[in-house]
């Protein structure tokens, strides 16, 4: 009896975020982009609540809210938000540039062993990662100097 051949599902769901093939660096950046995006969306929800519902009630409620938020848990949360913002923004810029075909080089004939433009031009990705690291250092420096993030 012939074994039944089941096609591989092309909708991998959340599992597909963590394993979608042999994409290496770009795949991890994709996961990071999604996770930071969802984190930022969660933060924006809280931030909108704070800057609308709390702010419209006047000075005393606003100051009480700021006092409540001035504790180490929220401080760490804000640092994570700042890092997520830097990562999401610069990786997003890389994705837009590459999606629109800039800095990808001229198209080449597919000759074995095949390679794709994203990996041939990985130096661009590395430049973006370097800028992300520099900006993260600037944010942390701001923190060390004493300003609130």
């Amino acid at each position, binding site marked *: 009896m012939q074994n039944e051949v089941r096609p591989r599902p092309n909708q991998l769901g959340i599992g597909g975020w963590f394993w979608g093939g042999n994409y290496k660096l770009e795949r991890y950046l994709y996961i990071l982009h999604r996770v930071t995006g969802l984190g930022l969306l969660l933060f924006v929800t809280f931030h909108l609540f704070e800057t609308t519902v709390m702010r419209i009630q006047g000075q005393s409620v606003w100051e009480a809210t700021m006092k409540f938020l001035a504790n180490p848990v929220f401080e760490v949360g804000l640092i994570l938000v700042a890092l997520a913002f830097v990562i999401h923004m610069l990786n997003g810029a890389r994705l837009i540039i590459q999606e629109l075909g800039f800095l990808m080089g001229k198209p080449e004939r597919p000759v074995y062993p095949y390679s794709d433009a994203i990996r041939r031009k990985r130096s661009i990705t590395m430049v973006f990662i370097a800028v992300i690291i520099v900006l993260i250092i600037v*944010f942390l*420096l701001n923190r060390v100097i004493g300003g609130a993030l």
Partner: protein
Amino acid sequence: MLKTRMHLLFLLSAVGIAVFLGIHMAVQHLNRVLATGDVSPTSWLSMIGRATQNGWVVIYILLLVFGIYHGLYGLRGIIIEMTKTDKAIATVNWIFIVAGIILFAWAAYVPIALAAR
């Protein structure tokens, strides 16, 4: 064609967020490194000072438009990936459209009301 336009708007809103959130971050969150002069940007006086300046109100409303569209469209994309039927996709679309309009109306009302005080 509609999907292409919506995706292009998604990319454009990302650029808008980078510009306006960049201004917000520089003034309020990198005030020490960049020496913007505002040592307490979250104080009531500082916040209400910005809220009564038309330039800041415009920046925040544009940031709101770009942020709501980009955030909800991105989340919609993730949910749609896991959605299989056309009916479910249409339901998700309508939920996000209604949620976006309500969120924008409320969040835009507050800075305008504060500016009018």
